[in-house]
């Protein structure tokens, strides 16, 4: 089966996030006050072929550990979406 997988990678808490800070600083000039704690990370979407949802999750997690996130500065989370059978694949 093919599982749609979403991986969210965000800067770890406590680590400076220049991109988030820059957006936060730009907002008041655009008329947006009362916006705080802006953090910018990555969202990675993929389709993984696996027999079970658990297998898909395990492989996605391993990919995060090894590749998709850098644990020195980033934290990740994995979400598994709907599954499709092979035939229906685009």
């Amino acid at each position, binding site marked *: 089966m093919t599982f749609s997988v979403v991986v969210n990678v965000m800067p770890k808490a406590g680590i400076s996030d220049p991109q988030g800070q*820059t*957006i936060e600083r*730009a907002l008041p*000039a*655009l008329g947006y006050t009362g916006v705080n704690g802006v953090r910018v990370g990555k969202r990675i979407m993929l389709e993984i072929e696996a027999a079970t949802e658990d297998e898909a999750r395990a492989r996605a997690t391993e990919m995060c550990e090894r590749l998709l996130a850098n644990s020195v500065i980033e934290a990740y989370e994995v979400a598994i979406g709907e599954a499709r059978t092979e035939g229906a694949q685009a």
Partner: protein
Amino acid sequence: MTLREGLHRELGLTDDELQAIIERLGRDPSYTELAMFSVMWSEHCSYKSSRSHLASLPTEGPHILVGPGEGAGIIEVAPGVSVAWKIESHNHPSFVEPFNGAATGVGGIVRDILSMGARPIALMDPLRFGHLDDARTRYLVDGVVHGISSYGNSIGVPTVGGELVFEECYEENPLVNVACLGLVDGRLMSGRADVAGHSVVLFGSATGRDGIGGASVLASAEFDEHSHEKRPSVQVGDPLTEKLLIEASLELIRDDLVAGFQDLGAGGLSCPTAEMAAKSHMGMDLDLDRVHLREADMEPFEVMISESQERMLAVVEPGNVGAVLEICGKWGLEASAVGEVTSSGNIHVRLNGATVAEVPAESLADEGPLYDRPRRRPDWLDALQARAPGDDSRGDLEKAFLEVLGSPSVASKRWAWEQYDHMLFLGTVQGPGGDAAVLRLPGTDTAVAVTTDGPGRFCFLDPYEGAKLAVAEAARNVACVGARPVAITNCLNFGSPERPEVMWQFAEVVRGIRDACEALATPVTGGNVSFYNETQGRAIYPTPVIGMLGVLESAGGSVGLAFGSAGDALVLLGETRDDDFGGSEYAKVVNHTVAGRPPVLDLEAELRLQGVLIEAATRGLVRSSHDLSSGGLAITLAESALAGRIGFALRERGGQDHRWLFSESPSRAIVTCSGAALDEVLSLASDVGLPASTIGEVGGDALDFAVFALPLELATRTFEDALPSRLSATMA
């Protein structure tokens, strides 16, 4: 098959053009053929409005190995050392999506250079935008510079200079021109398909539905029953693939595996196939099943005109195809033999074995329409030229000086060029910030100087004189660093050619370039025309951007603009006229006026000045050299002082103070030299009858204009902060 009534118009072809196609083919074109004609006969690909004018430009010279007509001009700069030099525009895409528009503009010009078998070694980015008070303009500036930085840096081609000019007329039509210099790497390539039976190999990115834009009406025309989503026509750059394309291409050429070579740009696959076949009076069979696609269900017309980036086409001896595919594979590029050269003279396109297009290559590439469009001198021009040029004094000279120094078009462009790698290849002897960049060519002792200039305001006030001023200024910038100007490339940015006033401006500009290039012996090696830069009938200033290439005798002998040592003499070369204020920075910034006539240029005087500048540099007589342009004497002195972090004091003055300080008479420069060299510098000038006078000396930490003085510190802040502070207003 009958075409839907009016379809050709939606594709940008006129009724007459359609008729010409039908007559040429002896039948109605198929949809795919119509799409191919629509891109190949577009203004952009066929130069149908400009061709007849461009034909008058001088294109030959002792150093010119290849003139206009190929991917880029080729200039021999030293025995056995040749460079490719070319400029392109990506104005409209950059307005729609600044980051990717500018990025793919870089990608396009780099492939032009690559198609000649040259390694791209330097970029320049002449840019023009509206006013920085406008938030959308700030977004465009930031996005365009970021796009160039991101793409140019990633593909490993340093950006060594450019322009950043702000005028209201560019508000809805920013100009994003990019020039590229390449070093010929062994064999010179050409876009030819000489031998029947040779294979045609397409390599690089997969072909997607990018840049199909207007032609997407074909999808709905032909396939009404399916509801094709209207695709975005924005192209996203992939610098990694472009970098690999450069390395793979150069390796293919080095290994002598390629017989003919061309890039894919505007017009997609239709363009190199038709042009290469037509140039060799041959044909090509193409099998679209073999084109690697990004999206599976693409229509044949989409494959033929898609402008997906980062692709090249090589004509290859059949026995070499394996080796070509292997090298592409090594660099991680998709590649496939998509067809072969034939002697049929036709571009014959098949999908699943069925013919989808079969048209004479020459009809696509060479037989496009040629227009002699009506021209009319604008009726507003007399009145504009008769108006006062904005040369009034405002009294407070120091205030006027700081206004001009801090005006975004004059102020330091460090904000932009520090975002560009300008040092790669260990050749940047002089980087951005001076009159011209000086580059030592990798692997050689030869150095060249490059610059771009395009004084839109002068051209607006008088296109003929303005164009001459553009060429003269570009040549002077190159001469200042000690290089002999040898050739230009040019990007002609104009409004709609269908308006007689614009066409008149165009013809006048071309005439001006011709006359100046003839006088200065700098032939035109190619360029680009960008029409339709207008919004709601309001055109941009006619803006020819001249890319000048100069050659230095030795890299170590180049001269910069920075003042050197305290005690050096300040020598003003050339004649200052009091009333050269039309289109000047002073008139614009201090008096909010763009009117009158541009400064008067004497090409003979210009040649004398340049001769002296080059000679003085070559003999090692001058410590600094900087021409007088925007903002006149005052700004030139300030820029040299700031660059050298040392002040100066004027002793001499001439005429009314504000005129003397801000007039923009051309053909002038400030050089500095030690007391010991002064006599020799002065006699170099007097030998050729060039006015020269010692007007002061270098030293101290003030800009001392005799009539007022201010600390170096204050001027530095004004000059350096102007752009970043305006841009940071709401940057994100």
